[in-house]
């Protein structure tokens, strides 16, 4: 049940991001300055944290999607669904760690350089 629930939630989360993405890309139609200005938003460490949750959602949704296809088309899929769920979680985590490092590194850098709380980005 959890595999299905996470799949639903991550799917909805990704959909939400898609709307945000459409809005931020559409800033281009107001010219390069507006766009450049708006994407600096993604540099805030809090937005970086949100990006991390997006990464988790995408990774989980992708790996679990493969698991569901295996259940549907592989004759032994249902029998190994639980083990495959474990594999999905492990894979999600393993791929997440380096990506999280890349995303958070600049933010951590600024945090340590400018320890006062107004250091937004």
């Amino acid at each position, binding site marked *: *049940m959890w*595999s*299905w629930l996470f799949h639903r939630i991550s799917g909805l989360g990704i959909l939400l991001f898609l709307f945000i993405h459409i809005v931020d890309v559409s800033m281009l139609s107001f010219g390069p300055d507006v766009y450049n200005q708006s994407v600096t938003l993604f540099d805030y460490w809090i937005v970086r944290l949100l990006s991390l949750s997006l990464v988790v959602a995408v990774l989980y949704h992708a790996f679990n999607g493969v698991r*569901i296809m295996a*259940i*549907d*088309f592989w*004759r032994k*899929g*249902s*029998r190994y*669904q639980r083990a495959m769920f474990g594999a999905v979680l492990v894979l999600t985590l393993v791929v997440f760690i380096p990506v999280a490092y890349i995303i958070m590194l600049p933010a951590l850098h600024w945090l340590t350089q400018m320890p006062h709380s107004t250091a937004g980005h």
Partner: protein
Amino acid sequence: MNILVRIKRYDPERDAKPYWDEFRVDVEPIDRLLDTLNTIKWTMDGTLTYRRSCAHGVCGSDAMRINGRNRLACKVLMRDVGKKVTIEPMLGYSVIKDLVIDMDRFFDKYRSIKPYLITHDNEPGTERLQSPEQRAIYDEGTKCILCGACTGSCPSIWGNPDWVGPASIVNAHRFIFDSRDQGGAERLNLLSNKDGVWRCRTIFNCADACPRNIPVTDLIEQVKRAIVYGGPEEA
């Protein structure tokens, strides 16, 4: 052991809405939950209402939601439920009274998939022979006791009461994969409509709920593949 039993009760003639009732019961660890319900009914509150018949996991009448999971009360031991046990009628059905649910729709759906032998050829005049291997293919489905635990555990049913549900598909599988039966195409056709197998989202609650340990989701997946590939796969 002294155990706190919380039961969700509802009497449509008296109560505006369901409420929680509590009983403290002395039980033996190897008592079954059904024994505990009987103790309550026979010595504490005679109005408590639930179905049971065989008391040995054969008739399928006492499926209920025990600590959040659908189980047969006669197959759950008190030592496995903890100090406090919560008992509710199964979700996905309307409640008639206390733990008794209305299973009319469940059986309507069961009948809708034609759970009987269909043949078009002339009667052979002798037995309809089948090899042990052919028999083994649909063995799991024959164990179903129609308790409704799988169907009542399924979020797809909670969201859409029109869905045919896992129990019907298990019983369809039992005939679709039977080498003597000739109604497979008919049933696959029925099950490929919008309230057929495709509402299964492989959540696996049904397989967890089944007191007969039938791999319910696996059988549903086999039926899905039979629809996609135009007939049962060779085992």
